[in-house]
Each structure stands twice: as structure tokens, then as C-alpha cells.
């Protein structure tokens, strides 16, 4: 599948007036209440740009003109470059991409089925699997390895992705050191070209701290990326009713204020930096205070977020497909579909956390990765829509068959059935007796076999020798630095 071929936008929840109302409500909040900024340099950047900054209270009030200027400066689209140019991703317009689950600490062991800590070897396996799956846009690490020192996890994660996939790569933002290390890897992958802004080959994601706060650590990391012209996804994870209003519209206003304040900062530091307008907000479950990843409202917020991003002409990012279920049951299936299908039909440009996640986004299941990827096939098919042209209308074909014949032997069928019908591989479509004869297996067992097959047979394209050597040297350097630091 050509990763940039999927385009569409079918559902909207907000009218143009709704969007205007949200926009002006946001400007009101930013101008009169402002955001609290914990990063000293960022406060200075805001002040230089013309915001009203109180260095004592750390409150930054942003005039509407500044917000609108920043929106103007943000590119409408950009290309996220991959090691393999065929896998470059166009961001923006009405193109839709699906990225896998991200950095879950636990995994369901493929052999025992038991939930356990994720390891580096899972990072490698999952990067290879993500690389092999055609509908997955990038191979971001689905799990967070817990068998390596915490202070080195970021570099091992990047190593696992870079070595096992030639798709697009995401770096991490948590703190200046992690950001700098990630960007160094981006330079190595760009074969030493330090002018990353020309061909950005790494993007990072910042989560705003709701309500209305900009964290010191993350903002520090973000500034490193922005200074280099590398794209940043600005995302909010509001729990509606907890860290945001219980109303969806209120959540959208708060989220908009948080995203736009980051956009103002980024454009103040380096005008023209590519950014992505994003969300993973959902509702709070008022029984246990958990954010509900499987809530239909999450899908709706995704669509509204994409609408606002289109209004600002900035690429959008959503998050859908995680489930709150702990096992591969019906809940896992329906939550995946209800959130992701809605979000995808809403035309979100970059959908994160789409495959593999279970357990409130805390765990990954190998089997679920491939099952979700198959469901993505159906979703992709829906987005492709219905082609209506003379060939597809098939009038000549219908005439030539006439009443009572059949179309199975017609060349038109042979020519079109694979293009027009999504053919699932894991789903069982047999008669009962045949299903029984084939072992009477559930989808989980068939999925396990597919995972085993990929892990046995799939070989990702290796890095160029010189790039691999340089990466190894750098990883060694970071390891030595870590030993020295921990020795203190």
C-alpha cells in the first residue's frame, strides 16, 4: 500500500459556527486567563514575542493577534522523511496515517499469554512487525523496555526502531538530554547532514499538562526540536470532567487553548516550524477516575480536533484504537472499531496508538497488533470510498451477462474484485464444518500463528554499514556517559 494514498474526510460533528465559537472562546481564555509556563527561557520567548508575562506567577497571557500570527506561520503541510524514501509520509491535507501503540510498559507474552514487563527484545520484535505491516505508517516502539536502565531506555528504543524499520521515526521529548540524544540519532540517520530542517526525518510529541500548564521538562525538550526545525506534535490528553470540563465543547476549548499556546511558543522560537495539532483527550470514568480510551467520545473529540486543525490549516493528530479491556475479547474489538473508525472517517491526518494496545493503554498484545492491522484493512477500505466511473458502473458487463447468469467468470470480476473488496486473512469466513476441520481455532490463535510467521520470516532492511557503525558508536557513548553519571 502506498502510505500516502489514503485520503478522505467523511464525518464532522461541528458546524462552521461551532468552530468559530470554539475559536473565540479560546482566544478569550488565552488573553484573559493565560497559561502557566514553568520553563524560564520559554517565558522569555513569550515576552519577546509580545505576550503579557508575569515572571513571578509564571502566568503568560497571550493577545489574540499573537495567536493568529502564530497560526499563520505554521506550515499547512510537510513531509516526514523516512530512511526509505518510498515510505516518506506527507502530513496534512486530507491524507490519513496509522501509527502503532506507543511505549506501553507491559506486554502479553506470546508463548505464555501472561502479562509481563516489556523488554528490549519486545522492542525489536514489535519494530520488525510494525515494519512488515503495510498499513502502519511508522514503527514507533510499541512498548517501553523495563530490562534496561531507565536513563538509557530512550536510546535503546531509538536503536530498536532504527535498526528494524526503514519507516518514519519518532524521537522523544522528555527533557533536554533525551531530546538532544534523539536529534543526534536523527543526524546519524541523515548520514551526518546537520541541516535537519530541510528534510525532517524525526518528529516528537509533547503532551500539554492540563489545565493550561506548560511543563518545564517537556517544553525544554520541545525547544531542542523546534530550534532544529524538526516537527513537533502538540497534543492534549484532557480527561473530560477531571482535568477539563465535562462537556465535549468545553474540552475542545481548553484543548485548543493549550495547543495554541504551544504553537505560539514554537513559532516565536523558530518561525515556520512544522507542527501538528493533536489530541488524545477522552472522558473520565467517574467510578475510578481512569481516562477511558475505548469511549465513543474519544472518537468524537478526534473528529472535532481534525476539524479545528483544518480550520487553522495545520496537520492533525489523533489517538484511537486503544482499549480498556484486559483481554482479547469483544470489548477489545468494539472499542477499537468504534474509536478508530469514527476518527479515521473524520479525516485525522496522523492517528497514533492505533494497533496493539490493551489494558487502558498500559499493555501491548502481539496478537492484537495483527488483528488490529487486519481491522485497519476494513477501515482503509471504507475511507477509499465508492468509485463511480464507467468501468465501475459495469453496464456493459451487466448487459453481457443478462438475467440468470453469473459474474464469477467475467474478466471484469477478475480485474476488480481485489481492488473493490477488502479480503480479510485472519477473520474466519468458513462454514462451521470447514472451520471445525481446520482446527476450530479462535482468531487469537490464528493471529499468534501470523505473528510467529512474521518473526520467523521477516527481515527488515539493514542500515547502511557506515550509519550502523556511527549509531553503535553513539549508543556506546551514551552508555559510558550514563555509567559515569550513575557512578557520581
Amino acid at each position: 500500500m502506498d502510505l500516502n494514498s489514503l485520503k478522505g474526510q467523511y464525518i464532522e460533528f461541528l458546524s462552521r459556527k461551532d468552530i468559530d465559537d470554539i475559536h473565540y472562546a479560546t482566544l478569550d481564555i488565552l488573553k484573559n486567563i493565560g497559561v502557566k509556563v514553568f520553563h524560564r527561557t520559554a517565558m522569555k520567548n513569550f515576552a519577546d514575542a509580545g505576550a503579557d508575562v508575569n515572571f513571578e506567577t509564571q502566568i503568560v497571557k497571550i493577545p489574540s493577534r499573537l495567536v493568529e500570527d502564530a497560526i499563520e506561520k505554521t506550515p499547512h503541510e510537510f513531509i516526514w522523511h523516512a530512511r526509505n524514501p518510498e515510505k516518506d509520509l506527507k502530513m496534512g491535507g486530507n491524507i490519513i496515517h496509522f501509527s502503532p501503540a506507543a511505549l506501553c510498559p507491559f506486554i502479553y507474552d506470546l508463548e505464555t499469554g501472561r502479562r509481563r514487563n516489556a523488554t528490549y527484545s519486545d522492542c525489536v520484535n514489535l519494530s520488525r512487525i510494525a515494519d512488515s505491516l503495510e498499513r502502519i505508517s511508522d514503527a514507533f516502539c510499541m512498548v517501553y523496555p523495563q530490562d534496561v536502565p531507565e536513563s538509557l531506555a530512550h536510546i535503546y528504543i531509538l536503536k530498536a526502531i532504527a535498526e528494524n524499520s526503514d519507516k518514519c521515526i519518532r524521537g522523544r521529548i522528555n527533557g533536554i538530554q533525551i531530546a538532544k540524544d534523539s536529534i543526534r540519532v536523527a543526524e546519524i540517520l541523515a548520514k551526518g547532514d546537520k541541516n535537519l530542517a530541510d528534510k525532517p526525518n524525526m518528529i516528537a510529541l509533547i503532551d500539554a499538562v492540563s489545565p493550561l500548564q506548560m511543563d518545564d521538562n517537556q517544553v525544554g525538550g520541545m525547544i531542542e526540536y523546534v530550534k532544529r526545525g524538526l516537527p513537533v506534535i502538540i497534543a492534549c490528553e484532557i480527561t473530560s470532567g477531571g482535568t477539563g470540563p465535562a462537556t465535549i465543547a468545553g474540552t475542545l476549548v481548553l484543548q485548543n487553548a493549550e495547543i495554541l499556546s504551544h504553537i505560539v511558543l514554537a513559532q516565536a522560537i523558530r518561525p515556520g516550524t512544522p507542527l501538528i495539532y493533536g489530541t488524545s483527550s477522552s472522558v473520565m470514568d467517574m467510578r475510578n477516575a481512569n481516562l477511558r480510551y475505548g469511549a465513543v467520545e474519544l472518537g468524537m473529540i478526534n473528529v472535532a480536533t481534525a476539524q479545528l486543525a483544518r480550520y487553522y490549516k495545520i496537520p492533525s493528530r489523533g489517538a484511537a484504537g486503544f482499549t480498556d479491556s484486559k483481554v482479547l475479547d469483544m470489548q477489545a474489538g468494539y472499542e477499537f472499531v468504534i474509536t478508530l473508525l469514527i476518527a479515521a472517517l473524520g479525516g485525522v491526518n496522523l492517528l497514533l496508538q492505533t494497533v496493539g494496545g490493551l489494558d487502558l493503554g498500559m499493555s501491548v498484545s502481539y496478537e492484537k497488533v495483527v488483528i488490529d492491522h487486519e481491522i485497519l484493512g476494513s477501515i482503509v477500505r471504507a475511507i477509499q470510498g465508492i468509485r463511480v466511473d464507467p468501468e465501475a458502473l459495469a453496464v456493459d458487463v451487466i448487459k453481457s451477462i443478462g438475467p440468470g447468469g453469473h459474474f464469477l467468470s467475467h474478466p471484469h470480476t477478475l480485474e476488480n474484485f481485489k481492488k473493490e473488496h477488502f479480503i480479510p486473512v485472519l477473520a474466519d469466513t468458513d462454514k462451521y464444518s470447514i472451520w471445525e476441520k481446520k482446527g476450530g481455532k479462535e482468531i487469537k490463535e490464528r493471529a499468534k500463528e501470523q505473528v510467529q510467521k512474521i518473526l520467523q520470516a521477516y527481515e527488515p532492511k539493514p542500515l547502511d554499514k557506515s550509519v550502523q557503525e556511527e549509531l553503535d558508536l553513539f549508543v556506546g557513548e551514551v552508555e559510558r556517559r550514563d555509567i559515569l553519571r550513575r557512578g557520581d
Partner: protein
Amino acid sequence: MRANEKLTNEMYKINLIEELYEIVKNPGKVSKENIEKKIELVIEKGINPIDVLNNGLLKGLREIGDRFGRGDAFLPELMGAANIVEKAMKILKPQILKLKLEKGLSMKRSGVIVIGTVQGDIHDLGKNIVATMLKTYGFEVYDIGVNVPVDTFIAKALHFNANIIGTSALLTTTLYEQKKLIETLREKGLKGRFKVVVGGAPITEEWSKKIGADGYAENAVEAVKVVSELIE
């Protein structure tokens, strides 16, 4: 020099048979390929038509049939391959008969099958697929249509001197027609003369055994296997 020419000619023949095998095997890839022209070339070059059939056309069809059985190929591909073979056979069959006559080879009829959808049912997709596949494999197939009463099945089978009667039913309400056919054959003392094969979406092996049918197939590829075994 001459030996070389002979060799080149042999190579050419082998390549052509191989090419036909590839065409049948990949009907989706070469659907626009003109099969008639290739077969005319076969005749022009004097290639043994039985060789062409067995090592080219049918070999390709068997391969796609096997893939279909494993779930790796799809019905339109199978039917596409069958269509190519059918087209090729229109030209090739007279050549094969001629060759058999010249060499004094057996001219025995291949199996004769009368096939139809039972009374009360006008669904014929499955029956048509099976009929096409059987024809492609060289059986003499008489498709007597849909909504066929038991008596007509028997009359036609007698008329064509058939080996096998194939009955298809899609509706659960018309399944019993298959049972009725076998009972009627027994009553008339014809059970031994014709083998009965049953098929259709709701049909199971269990049902087939219960009503005393001689064969049951899950799909068109299996139908060919079942019929071949029954005729041997």
C-alpha cells in the same frame, strides 16, 4: 548445426508449454493474453496436443486448484483459469482426437455427468461453478438447469447414459429433494447404475451420508476430485 536447430526447436516447444502453464496459473496477471493465438502456434509447430494439455493447461489448473483449496487463490482466479483452459480446448480437442485416432489410442468417453439444481430452487451459482470446473477437467457435463424435478434428473441421466448425477440445493427447504432423488432411484432399481453427488451451501458430509449419497464436495475443486474418484 542441424542438431542445434533440432535442440532449439525442442526448447521452443518446451518453452511454449511452460508459457501456457504460466498463463493458466496466473489468470489475473495475463487476463488479456490471447490464448487462442498461443494454441494455434502449438498446432502450427506440431507440438503434441496431449503434452500441451497435461503438462501445460491442466498442470496450471491443478496448481491454481490446489492454491484455491489452501485458501491462497480466489474463485474468480480459479474460474478465470478454467475459462482459459476451456477456450484452449475448443481448438485443441479436435487435434487430440485426431492424434488418438492416428495412434490407435483409447477413445473411451470420459465420465458423463448430469448436473442441476433441485426442484423449488433456482439458485445456480454453485452448480455453474462446479459444472465449469468439471468440463474443464474433460468430463462430459450436461447442465440441465434449475428447478429440476426428480423425474427429470433420472430421465436425463438415462438419456445421456450418465455415470453421475450431481444435485445442488441452496435452500434448507429444498434439501429433501436430494433425499427424494436417491429414494426414487432405489425404488426404480437404478441406485446401482448412477452415482449421486450432492452439494450446496447448507449441505454437510453428515447429510450426504445420511441420505445415502455417493459423494459430497465442499467446493468446486473438491467436486472434481470426488467425481474423478467415483468414476475410476
